[in-house]
């Protein structure tokens, strides 16, 4: 067990190193230099050269990479050229918004998906099963950003039930009203994300439960005379739940990738929107930091899922 986890982590290290080199080189290859926008266009080119030299932008790439990594380990990701503040602070303030949204969506997804999966498996091959199958398949194959745009149009603009921009109302007082306002802002994107992201959990739970239904311990429980309701509640559901919990890691990585779209549509100030804005300003200290953070979060999400799965299912442990 521990061997599996240790080996998984050891494999991660070279991956992170390669990712960091790749990200760094890509950022270097981006057009324009970081000072283009921030200083007076009439400035002396010689002064600009001096500035570039002071910041080490003429050093060979491996030297620059090394400096960057050393700074990274000191928790210093550089300054954002666009916002003129440390990248760590900038991203920190945005990451909270993104993570709240992701967490809320994940919880809501499970709230929708677990009953659906159980119900479909209970009525396997009957009408409810087909309806749930059609529902998951329809929600799965429509591109999510289209749903977001139509959702914000219907519920945000036409009906006016939900706010369409921002993460908090500007007039909300601190304390409880501000928490309420934040929650109100993530409600629509969260519900849409949950309604249209159930497919994996539903299908996996359904096949788990159907397998469990035919297993020996369920037959034993039945022959002992345990009521059908209790068999599902205490025997099957508990056994099928852990593998499902493993999906949480994967689903968070999926949500992070989707955050680019969600946050653009809702103008929600999280990491995804920050990335889109930074790209247009060529703010590459922010870009490198964000790609790196997303990569590492992806890795951690997969690691989490793999660990849970290997605890639950001994077959997939690495020998």
């Amino acid at each position, binding site marked *: 067990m521990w061997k599996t986890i240790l080996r998984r982590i050891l494999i991660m290290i070279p991956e992170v190193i390669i990712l960091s080199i790749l990200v760094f080189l890509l950022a270097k290859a981006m057009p324009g230099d970081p000072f283009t926008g921030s200083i007076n266009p009439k400035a002396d080119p010689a002064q600009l050269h001096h500035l570039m030299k002071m910041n080490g932008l003429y050093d060979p790439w491996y030297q620059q990479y090394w400096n960057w990594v050393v700074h990274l380990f000191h928790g210093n990701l550089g300054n954002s050229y666009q916002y003129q503040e440390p990248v760590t602070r900038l991203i920190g303030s945005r990451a909270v918004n993104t993570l709240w949204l992701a967490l809320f969506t994940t919880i809501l997804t499970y709230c929708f998906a677990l009953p659906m999966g159980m119900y479909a498996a209970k009525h396997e091959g009957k009408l409810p099963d087909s309806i749930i199958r059609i529902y998951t398949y329809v929600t799965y194959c429509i591109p999510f950003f289209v749903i977001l745009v139509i959702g914000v149009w219907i519920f945000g603009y036409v009906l006016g039930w939900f706010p369409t921009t921002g993460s908090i109302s500007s007039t909300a007082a601190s304390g409880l009203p501000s928490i309420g306002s934040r929650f109100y802002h993530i409600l629509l994107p969260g519900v849409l994300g949950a309604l249209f992201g159930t497919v994996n959990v539903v299908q996996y739970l359904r096949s788990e439960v159907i397998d469990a239904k035919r297993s020996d311990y369920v037959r034993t429980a039945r022959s002992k005379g345990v009521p059908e309701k209790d068999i599902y509640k205490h025997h099957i559901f508990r056994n099928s739940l852990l593998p499902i919990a493993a999906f949480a890691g994967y689903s968070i990585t999926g949500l992070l990738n989707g955050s680019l779209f969600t946050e653009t549509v809702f103008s929600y100030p999280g990491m995804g929107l920050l990335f889109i804005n930074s790209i247009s300003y060529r703010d590459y200290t922010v*870009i490198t930091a964000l790609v790196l953070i997303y990569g590492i979060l992806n890795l951690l999400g997969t690691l989490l899922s793999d660990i849970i799965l290997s605890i639950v299912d001994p077959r997939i442990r690495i020998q």
Partner: protein
Amino acid sequence: MEENLNRHSKISAADLERLSKEAKGEATPSSAKIIWSEFKADKPAMAALIIIIVFILFVMIASLFINTPKMMETDIMNYNSAPGTNGFLLGADTGGRSIGQQLIVGARNSIGIAIGLTVISSTFGICWGLISGYFNGYIDWGMQRVYDFMMMLPMTMMIIVLVTIIKDYNAVTLTLIFSIFYWEGTSRLIRSRTLSESEKDYVAAAKTSGTSNFKIIFKEIMPNISSLIIVDTTLSFAENIGVETGLSYLGFGLPMQTPSLGTLIANANDPNNITQYWWTWLPAALLIIILCLSISYVGQVVRRSADASQRHGIDA
């Protein structure tokens, strides 16, 4: 060859013909035939298939008659014309450009890129999965690490960064960039199937008789998993429509002067458009939904026909 065979056999030519006819009748029908009979038995699937084919043919042919640079010229007089006015059947956008024409050209571009992406990424993913699954051992281990690494990359972000780095990109380079990141799903599926397929007797027999690895992979294993390949390709085609349109929606797909279904939906980013001028973006959004639903419905039917126990058409 056949003559040679006949000379040595004791069976007469007439008998041989009769026997081979009987054998053909008893053999399982070819996968193309199975899929076709499945479509004939399922009327909605047939409708979806016809919608897709007619629609693709329509946009391909109609877009030949549309002069794209002329269409994209701004005409301030027709600013946001409502549908049916000023000679615009589906209205005009903020620049006075016809939405109907943009839909046709945009649909052609988006479908074209989706087809290109599907062909390239599926071919690569299939080869990757076959080789990784067949050789096992160190080769598989190495290829799996590359796969893990690719899975870790934040795809959408990497594509956006690459698109900003490459200066003069067009539909072809864009398709290639997408292809770098979208082969993993296919490769994983094919690998797991190849792993179990390589254990089977016919592969061992081919190995013993000295068939080359290349031949075993592409002439023995690949035909045996062809139904899986067909299913996966159809389903990933439906997903790939969302890839380009999504990136174009964010503003990092096709350039503004080349319409795509995504750039049309991006009209909705303007609060005026989304509230008052719904015709500038809603048709494109609905079109994407209909296209994706019908393509993946066709994919579902193909998947059903690959699984003998679920068929409607032929009783297996």
